[in-house]
């Protein structure tokens, strides 16, 4: 629950303009202004909670963990895609601060956007380990050195907050573009030394809506709150895709093996 600004130390007031849209009654989205008292440690999420608890209970937005790990509260804050829980009101004083739903997604209600399309993209890239070699539970874990882990670890840190999609001009133009987040997840598995399904996933990379749709603007990595660097994932896939294309003519395997510099093999 948000701290009670009345009880805190230095309280100031900021105007937050929130985009409102209720499909049952509103013809179009409109900004609604609220005066919100805040202390220096209050996040934008806590500001929205203050509005909902004290000023207007009908404001709808997603949130849960409050600590930038569940990925629920992505929204446009001052026209930038950000996590509301990790963005602070003090940085926008005296306002007005505009808070809108994530760009490039259909609005369902107020700050809530449709997420089904994004989830489908994730589901489409075989987002699970397809082991190179089978191993029974009795045989224990697959070995993987810290260096091998480091090759994909960053990509495994994606919290699915979709900020990168809101920042991606290409996704804005073409909603079918697989996009930065799903591409990072694809690379998370393709880069995993235990996985053996790179070829299957590379087929997706080659398609019209795959890596080549990316125009290398790099906004995705700039807005990523977890330093996942999806632009790098897309880039790595472009390199591989090009290499695949070249190797095709030489009759070599069509995908990248985990052979390069595997001196770190356990």
């Amino acid at each position, binding site marked *: 629950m948000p701290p009670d600004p009345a009880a805190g130390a230095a309280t100031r007031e900021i105007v937050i303009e929130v985009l409102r849209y209720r499909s049952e009654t509103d013809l179009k989205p409109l900004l609604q202004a609220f005066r919100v008292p805040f202390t220096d440690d209050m996040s934008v999420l806590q500001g929205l909670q203050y509005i909902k608890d004290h000023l207007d209970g009908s404001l709808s937005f997603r949130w849960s963990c*409050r600590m930038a790990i569940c990925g629920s509260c992505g929204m446009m804050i001052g026209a930038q895609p950000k996590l509301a829980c*990790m963005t602070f009101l003090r940085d926008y004083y005296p306002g007005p601060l505009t808070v809108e739903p994530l760009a490039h997604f259909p609005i369902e209600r107020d700050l809530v956007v449709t997420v089904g399309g994004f989830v489908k993209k994730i589901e489409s890239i075989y987002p699970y380990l397809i082991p190179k070699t089978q191993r029974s539970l009795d045989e224990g874990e697959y070995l993987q050195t810290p260096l091998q882990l480091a090759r994909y670890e960053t990509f495994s840190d994606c919290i699915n907050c979709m900020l990168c999609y809101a920042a991606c001009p290409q996704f804005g133009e073409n909603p079918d573009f697989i996009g930065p987040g799903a591409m990072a997840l694809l690379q998370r598995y393709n880069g995993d030394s*235990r996985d053996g399904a790179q070829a299957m996933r590379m087929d997706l990379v080659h398609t019209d809506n795959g890596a080549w749709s990316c125009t290398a603007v790099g906004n995705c990595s700039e807005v990523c709150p977890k330093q996942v660097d999806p632009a790098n994932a897309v880039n790595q896939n472009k390199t591989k895709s090009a290499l695949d294309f070249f190797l095709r003519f030489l009759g070599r395997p069509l995908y990248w093996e985990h052979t390069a510099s595997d001196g770190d093999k356990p």
Partner: protein
Amino acid sequence: MKVVQADIAIVGAGGAGLRAAIAAAEADAALTIALISKVLPMRSHTVAAEGGSAGVVQGHDSLADHFSDTVMGGDWLCDQNVVDYFVAHCTEEMVQLEHWGCPWSRKPDGHIDVRAFGGMKIERTWYAADKTGFHILHTLFQTSIKYPSIQRFDEYFCVDLIVEDGRCQGVIVIEIATGEFVLIAAKAVIIATGGAGRVFLQNTNGGIVTGDGMAMAYHHGVPLRDMEFVQYHPTCMPGTGLLFTEGCRGEGGILTNKNGYRYLQDYGLGPPDPWPRNKAMELGPRDRISQAFWHEERKGHTISTPHGETVNLDLRHLGASKLNERLPQICELAKHFLGIDPAHQPIPVRPGVHYTMGGILVNLETAAPLPGLFAAGECASAGIHGANRLGSNSLSELGVFGKMAGTTAASYATGVVTAPIATLERQAQDVERCALSLIVAEGGRERPAVLRDEMARSMEGGCGIYRLGAEMLAACDTIANLKERYRNLRLDDRSRVWNTEWLGAIELGYQLDVAEAIVHSAINRRESRGAHQRLDGFETRDDASFLQHTLARYRPDGPPQIDYSPVIITRSPPGKRAYGAEAERIEKAAKEASHAA
């Protein structure tokens, strides 16, 4: 009303729910599984678990040690047959997660690494940096996509269970995007909805942790067991309650008071050196460390901040490079939320509510007394945590008992048939009418947020780290009064599409019932044990009267009926709960005695 028919309905798609879904799908590919969650699965609160997950792997470790640490940590209120099953299956669950891709942190030789954790004699906590729950949850979610028989209902809110012919036969849910009700008829229902920490004020929990499944089972006559045992995690951010993992201390972090003194040595956990040392000082159990904070605060040894008294979690000696490798999220939280770099400054921390040890009564097979109903994870009381859970046992629990629930429910579902849909639908329509009454009711005056805040303050006052009869009684009265006022709610939002005020009001109803079960269970336990500590004449453990589980049974017109049931003790009779030097002395004496014999 829209009707969906499934063999198994699972409510909650966090660690336990996803593990159950996969286990059921693997048990019988022909079964249809409805996996229902009020949020996208990766938003579930498993995501916020940081430190790690227990499973014996080292040569000098043993299942017997994991067993005795768990039973002693739980102050002998654990069902020992269940603990035995649990410790024997933790490691294979961790290996299973590894086979599914979980990015466990590794040793240079490629094997998984383990870290020290509170109350654990030997290092057995598997970890993925300090985002273990996040990685487990995403691994399970992504793996679940492989199974076509798992049909997800993302962002569907569960309103009630359907109980017909004395069996649980489905659930009624609201599609949040439309506000439409859906009846999901099922031969077996698994509840995996997590804990209820949000009934308290300062807590580490996400907003969704509102005890939904506990309350639904409770309404249908299933007892909630051992609800008075609420875990205060000792190292949380003042104000927000955000968590700084026990892994900080597992990696060597220390706790100091305003004088820079490692005060835990004054509370039966010392001496401070050598450090780090398992089952001593900062690696003591959570209940003891939170209790020590309480005493330091009263002695005036804590540090005042705008959000209350704090002590220092000091990680500076670990150095920037180790901090970045092992505790990157902790560094990020400290930086963003407190403006602190833990490599150069200590982190101010204080205890916050973290975990509900109690929950829906289930047996070793995860079956509740209501046929057709199963429960796993934090919402359940399987019997492994007793009066105080050890850190890193709950993530393992999601795997071990999530799998058990999926397997057991699958086998149960193949042997029963559901009642005619029309019968179930009539029941569902009653539930729909009742839930809709919240948004159509006229003339109400109470704002849900006001009642929610009063509940949370009252629970913090009555069921804190230390408890007094008079304060618990006051909380009982407040909760009863809030339940009255709840009948008089006024919502600003009368719409159906994404009406989160409405869903919040339903959650508040769940929370008030769970809060009432907690405080009445607490006031009736006239002893001190684990996380339930009293200061009003019941300061010691009383095995003669209270080596028993509390059972709270719902009564529609008043406070719960409180009963007791025996604790299953197989091989570890209640003994002294000792840590630090005292534990070392006892162990040495036991060794000498066994050599002499």
